[in-house]
């Protein structure tokens, strides 16, 4: 594993000596790069095709002739995407909901995660089991009855559901915060307890500031969740109050009611740009959180 250089000259001889053969075979890598290129085409191809579609004229897009590249980049598609519907208003809706939701859910989950990590009371174990099981509960099963319930009390077509969901914490985020707070040493709180500080003050002045990386992870994740969510705004909000995610599927039609694919593609490019930006800047936070969710410990 450690010596890379001698591996190459040894290969030919080692092929004949049976037991060690497999150790060295990994050093002939050609095929793996071919595989990686094929996988890259699969994972990145749709992005490229989307951008190309966003730069074509409708005629170029539908023509029977093969046009991989547009003759001239049609930046006008983006102008149309921005002006055909009130793109700014929908963006503001998305931004507003995502911000409210992610700030609330991050703070509430931090508080609850701290409770499960550092405090004790009868029933804690049972509550934690319930919390972990709700992580497995399919969202959609509660979303539809919630819709019926909220329609009875006039919460449909308002942004209140997002506030409530934010305040109610997310089991996943609670788990993330609990894992972090459990690792901190007890000495952190000892001095404060001797000084007579309550747990509220200990949390806000000592633990919360320490949890900055988890706060950021939780904020980024819940922000992109909300920005990406289709089903909740589609069900709970009317078209004039809805988010960008729903709007780009509902507008961009020709008079006959057919979607104009080139303009919709341009809108989709604009819509995913913030997500991609967040992803590229904070990639390690995304990776760390999904790893944390998979490995329980």
């Amino acid at each position, binding site marked *: 594993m450690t010596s890379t250089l001698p591996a190459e000259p040894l290969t030919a001889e080692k092929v004949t000596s049976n037991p060690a053969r497999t150790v060295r*075979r*990994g050093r002939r890598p050609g095929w793996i790069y071919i*595989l*990686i290129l094929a*996988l*890259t085409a*699969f*994972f*990145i191809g*749709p*992005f490229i*095709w*989307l951008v190309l579609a966003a730069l074509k004229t409708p005629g170029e897009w539908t023509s029977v002739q*093969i046009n991989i590249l547009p003759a001239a980049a049609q930046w006008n598609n983006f102008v149309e995407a921005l002006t055909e519907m009130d793109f700014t208003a929908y963006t503001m809706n998305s931004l507003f909901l995502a911000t409210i939701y992610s700030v609330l859910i991050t703070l*509430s989950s931090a*508080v*609850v995660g701290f*409770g499960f990590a550092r*405090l*004790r*009371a*009868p029933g804690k174990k049972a*509550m934690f089991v319930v*919390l972990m099981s*709700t992580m497995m*509960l*399919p969202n*959609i*099963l*509660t979303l*539809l*009855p*919630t819709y*019926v319930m909220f329609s009875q009390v006039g919460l449909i077509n308002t942004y209140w559901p997002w506030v409530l*969901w934010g305040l*109610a*914490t997310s089991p996943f985020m609670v788990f993330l915060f609990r894992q972090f707070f459990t690792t901190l040493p007890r000495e952190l709180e000892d001095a404060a307890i001797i000084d007579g500080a309550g*747990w*509220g003050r200990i*949390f806000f002045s000592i633990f919360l500031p320490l949890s900055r990386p988890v706060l950021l992870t939780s904020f980024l994740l819940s922000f*992109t969740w909300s*920005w*990406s969510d289709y*089903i909740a705004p*589609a069900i709970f909000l009317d078209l004039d109050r809805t988010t960008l*995610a*729903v709007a*780009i*599927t509902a507008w961009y039609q020709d008079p006959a009611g057919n*979607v104009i*694919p080139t303009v919709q593609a341009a809108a*989709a490019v604009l819509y*995913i740009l913030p997500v991609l930006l967040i*992803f590229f800047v904070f*990639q390690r936070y*995304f990776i760390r959180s999904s*790893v944390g969710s*998979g*490995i*329980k410990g």
Partner: protein
Amino acid sequence: MARKWTRYPKKAFYAFTAPWAIGFILLTALPLVYGFLVSLTNFDGSSPRWKWVGLRNYVELMSDGDAWAALVRTLGFAALVVPLSVAGSLGLAVIINRRLIAVGLWRTVFFLPSVVPVVAMAIMWKLVFNKDAGILNVTLRALGLDSVGWLVDPTVFWALVVVMLWGLGGGMVIMLAALQGVPPELEEAAIVDGAGKWSVFRHVTVPMISPIIFFQGITGVIVALQVLVQPLLLTNATGLTGVGTVPQSNRLYMIEVYQEFFLNNRFGYGSAMLWVYFLAILGLTLVLLKTTRSFVYYEVDTDPAPKEAAR
């Protein structure tokens, strides 16, 4: 004793966990109970003249051919997608775990699709699968073959499977962490003993990471069973009523539920469908948890029987 009592007052724990507890009661437990009550009515979402119908919705569901067909289709879909995505994400992780040129770049490339919003994902893949102008058919025509209508019955089912597999990267990252947690001594010892590369992977690596594989499988099943948005958005229709245009091959169980709610306005019947599904998923999860426990390796497990099975 007194000191311990002051250190952890019960009130503090209940106060800190209250947001979750109240949220769970009001936004998870209550909707489930409320949904059950609605399932005993003929509520249509708007008119105030609804009445109790008892278990009639459930009786009707038992003989609802569409719902049963959708259930079978959904189980088939899960049976196909879950093993493929677990094996696929493990495969990607194995590739990324090797010493490669620009390994960070490939990891990003494989992981990227899993963060793309579902709406954008659907728009992209509709462009790829487009009958006239999609890259797939453009390629087929360049090779002198006929175009294929990807987004119609029955191929649209395979299109959906491909779209689901596109987001493998999320699982890959988890598998990668699991692979890196396997102590290298174990694999090296097996190699010294003369084990081939495949048998090291099969008999050392896979058993060591089996809890993660199992966890990924369970979450994968739950995700696959609640798939709704992807088939909904792969149609050309827009808005909530577009559910009626989902092709037959993609009419998964949640699509049928959604249709009862938002196209047929049968909230009572839709809720009954949800409740039956809830119980079915719960049962399936428990069965999976029970059966897989016998062949999953847990490091902390003191019971000798499962370990033997893992070897």
